[in-house]
Each structure stands twice: as C-alpha cells, then as structure tokens.
C-alpha cells in the first residue's frame, strides 16, 4: 500500500517539477530569449569572453609587454598589427586581449569578495537587528562617507609589493558596504515575516533560518547584484588604471589603454591606441548591465506572477 503511494507520489513529483515556480534560471532564460536586445547583449558578452580569455591563451604575457621601440606607433593594420602598436612597440590587439581579460578578472574578483562579505554582513545585520545591526551599520555608514577613490589611489601608491591581488583587496575594502546595505534592507524586511517566526517556533536555529529560509528568498537579488557589480567593478578598475593607479604597469588593462587618450596628441592622431579599448569597455559595460537589467525584469515578472 505504502509502496504504491510512494510510486505515485514519485510520479507526481516528476510531473510537478515541470511547473516548479522557483526555477529562476528558466524564467531568466525565457526572459532573455524573448528580449532580442538582451539576447544580443548576451552574445556580445560571450564574444568578448571568447576574444579576451580565448585569445589570451595563445599569448605569452612577457612577450606581449616587451618593449621594442623600433616598432613604436604603427598605425592601423601596419606591419601585421591590426590595431597598430603603442609607444613601446607592443601590439595593441594583444594588449587588448590581455587587458580585457585582466580587467574582467579584477571585476570578477572584486565582485566575489564584495558579494560574499556583503551578503554575510547583510544577513547578520538584518537578521539580528537591534544593537548588532546598529553597530554594523555605523561602520558601513562611515566607510561610505569616506572618499573612496583618493584613498584607493594613496593605498595603491604606498603598498609595498603591489600586485593585482592587492588591487582586488583595495577596491573591495570600499565595495562591500553597498552590497551589505542592499541585502540588509531585504533581510530586515523578511525578518518580521511570519515564516521566519514559524521557523523559530519549529525549532530551527538562527543559522539554519538565515541560510535555509531567508537566503533562498534573496537568490534572485544576489544574481542581479552580482551582474551589476561586475560591470561597476570593471569600471572602477579601468578608472584607476586610466589615471595610472590601477593594475601595475606590467599588467595591461583596458584602463591603461584608454589612458593613452590622456595625451592630446594621441587623441587626435593615434586613435588606434585608445579607441579599440574604449569600444570594448563600452561593449562590456553596456551588455553586462543590460543582462543585469533583464535579470531584474525577470525577477520582477516572477514576483508579479506570484
């Protein structure tokens, strides 16, 4: 008898899984495929990733950044350099591949740190509320009123053994606050919801409630925030590199390439130095943001359906 029940319920389960409403993934895919622009943005992202990460596979970092003054300032397509060369005779196309990859990697790294720290802080602060929250939020407030970019620049220039990892650390130092505030606000609103109380009266521990009850309710928010953060962190890195305080000079970045435009001569007569990187940064920023917005719309749409 019970076996039969088991059997039917298993079948039921299979059937029901199809109508499962929580599969954010499916809704997102549906939303993106429906939205032609989002689909294009998504393809652009894939192409950029293939170009930068794929291209970099065939490059030797040392060779790419080796200077060879004789080859300096080749224009478009000269001597086999499709995008020409820079002041050190380095091939811009190669720099673009590696620079793009580095910028994206920094963006990913900073996002990973900020999201994890921000999520943990936000969960704890929002869930416990009260004094815990008050103290954490004062700290967050304070960090947020600090002039981030000047301090970042100072740190970049005074830290000994400065490398890309230090840059990730420095940017993350200020980046997690916004994320934690964003999640905290949501957790705070969930904390008063009866389902949290119900879990408490069901004997679940705080830890369990935070991670098993509340967290699943913010997954779509996390996805959206991650995507938007990646775009914004790439922006911060390229900005810093642009004014010369981002990635170390041996590591190419989109920012350093665009930085060539700081020289009026380059702006007018050597557009190949900075234009490809600018276009690539535009492409990344616009398409990643667009996909983020599409996620957001998908999440909103699901909320409406519910």
């Amino acid at each position, binding site marked *: 008898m019970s076996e039969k029940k088991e059997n039917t319920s298993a079948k039921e389960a299979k059937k029901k899984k199809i109508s499962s409403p929580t599969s954010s993934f499916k809704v997102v895919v549906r939303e993106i495929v429906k939205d032609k622009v989002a689909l294009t943005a998504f393809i652009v992202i894939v192409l950029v990733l293939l170009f930068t990460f794929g291209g970099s596979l065939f490059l030797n970092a040392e060779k790419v950044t080796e200077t060879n003054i004789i080859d300096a300032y080749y224009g478009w397509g000269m001597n086999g350099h499709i995008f020409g060369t820079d002041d050190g005779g380095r091939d811009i196309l190669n720099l673009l591949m590696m620079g793009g990859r580095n910028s994206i990697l920094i963006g990913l790294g900073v996002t990973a740190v900020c999201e994890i720290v921000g999520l943990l802080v936000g969960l704890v602060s929002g869930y416990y509320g009260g004094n815990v929250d008050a103290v954490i939020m004062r700290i967050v407030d304070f960090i947020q009123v600090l002039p981030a*970019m000047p301090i970042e620049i100072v740190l970049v220039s*005074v830290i000994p053994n400065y490398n890309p990892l230090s840059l990730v650390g420095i940017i993350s130092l200020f980046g997690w606050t916004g994320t934690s505030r964003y999640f905290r606000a949501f957790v705070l609103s969930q904390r008063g919801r009866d389902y949290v109380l119900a879990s408490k009266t069901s004997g679940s521990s705080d830890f369990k409630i935070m991670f098993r009850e509340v967290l699943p309710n913010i997954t779509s928010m996390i996805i959206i925030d991650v995507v938007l953060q990646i775009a914004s962190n790439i922006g911060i890195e*390229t900005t810093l590199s642009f004014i010369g305080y981002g990635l170390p000079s041996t590591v190419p970045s989109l920012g350093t390439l665009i930085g060539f435009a700081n020289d009026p001569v380059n702006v007018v007569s050597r557009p190949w130095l900075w234009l490809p990187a600018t276009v690539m940064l535009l492409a990344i920023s616009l398409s990643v943001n667009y996909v983020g917005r599409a996620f957001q719309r998908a999440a909103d749409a699901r909320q409406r359906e519910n």
Partner: protein
Amino acid sequence: MWKTVLRRILIMIPQLIILSILVFFLAKMMPGDPFSGLIGPNTDPKQLEALKRQAGLYDPVPVQYAHWLKNLFKGDLGISYIQHVPVTSLIADRAVNTFWLALITTIITYCVAIPLGVTAGRHQDEWQDQAVQIFNYITFAVPPFVFYILGIWLFGFTLGWFPISGSVSPNASGFFGTIGSQIYHIILPACLVALISTTSIVQYLRTGIVDNKVEDYVRTAHSKGVPDNVVFSKHILRNSLLPIASSFGSVIAGLLSGSMIVESVFSYPGMGKLFLDSIGQRDYSTLTALILIFGVLTLLGNLLSDIIMSIVDPRIRIK
C-alpha cells in the same frame, strides 16, 4: 526639528575624529617627511636629524597625533614637500576652481534631471520614458571617464567648440573677459559630469512618481474632483521631489570629492588635479590634507542632506 539637526551634528563629531585618525595613519604610512625635499648633496645629516627631532617626528605616535590635530585646528595643514609652501595656500587656489566647476555642474544637473525625471514618470512606459531610460541606462553603465574622453575628442578636438584644458585662457583680460573665459572652460567638463550625475536623480524621481501615482491618496485626490494636472503637481510630484531635495547635499559632496577624474582629463587646475599631481610627485603632506578635506566635505554634504530632509519632511520635522 532643531533637536534632530543638533543631534545629527553631534553624530558627526565622532565621525570626524575617526576620520582624522584614519587620515593621520594614512599619512604615517606614506614614505617621506617634510624634510625629504631639502636633502641635497650639501645637507648635513646631523642637522637634518635635529630638525626632524625638533619637528616631533620621533615623538610617540599619540603625541604626534595630538600635535598634528593642534596644527589642524590652527588651520595649519603642513608644508608641501615639493613646493615648500603652506598646503593651505596651495589648496585654496585650486579649491576655488573646483568649487565653480561643482556649482555649475550642480546647476546643469538639476536643470536637466528634473524635467527628464518628470517626463519619464509622467509618461511611464511611453516613448518619452523609454528614451529617458535608454539615456539613463547608458550613463549608468559606462564608466564616466569614457564620456570625458569621448567628449573631449568630439567637442574639443573634432568640432573644436570648447577648450580642452586649463581653467582660463592666458589671453583673457579684464574682469569680464576673465570670467567669460573661465565659464567657457568650465562648460564642457561641467556638462559631461552633469550627464552622469543626472542618472540617479532622474531614476529616483521617475520611480517616485511611478510609485506615488498608484498610491491611495492620489485616488482620494481624484475622488475629490481635483483636476488631473493638479493632482500630478500638487500630490504626486511634490511627494516625489522630497527625496530629491534631500539628495542635494550628497550630490555636491560627491562632485567636490569626485572631481579627480574630470579635472585630470581636462587638466583643470582644481583640487582633484592637485591630488593626482601630488601623488605623482609624492607630495604626501598635500595628499593628506586633501584626503582630509574630501572626507570632511562628504561628511558635511551628508549632514546637509539630512538637515534638508528634516526640514522638508513633516514626519521628521514634527518629531
């Protein structure tokens, strides 16, 4: 209300203290000291040592901090390592330029953002709204310096409409000539910065209008027979402008301390440019002073925002 404001000011005091400690330690972390620039082949190391001791560089850290703080209160931010002039006078010149840039940017920002936000909110999901949304989306997504570069390339070099560097033309003469030249130099950077700083204001205003539109009290106003356009201006718009008004302080603070990139691109002699120059020249005393000023400005900007909020929002004012 005054209680709220006063309390808000009191909250700022510990923030200022922490900020000063932070800046002090940042300064300590930086290599060099006021005498680094004096070292030449003829400098007597012993004499230098004595000077350093006299300046308190070997005192315990708290004593040094107290000393630093005391000087701070006297308005003494130290001597520039490189230029050998008081940092205060170095900054003062530049601060005026940054102030004008920020002021004009703010004016342009609000003049552009409010009509855009109102249009988008009022015509939600229609073409006007979609156009504003696209504008907003682009300015939000792309890092600002890209706009500066493209702006300078297009309007400065290609079209030649605006000067591309400096704050005033060396040929400018006379009071009005100078002012005119200054404004001419400011317009392009101000417009480009405003392009970006409008984004959040437009977004807030639009969301505020869209959200307020469906509130029950708007329905009530309609049910009283209030004409549509009055319901919009008197109920929806007024309530949506509240958060915008209060963001004023932080917008200004953001512009002042965020002047770095735009001033660097336009070689505009303001505080941000000074900051970057100082870091290039390892002029750490100037750097320290600038970070402190940027920090205080942001704190003051946020204070201003909170004060405006407590004046315009009855829910805070009355409590």
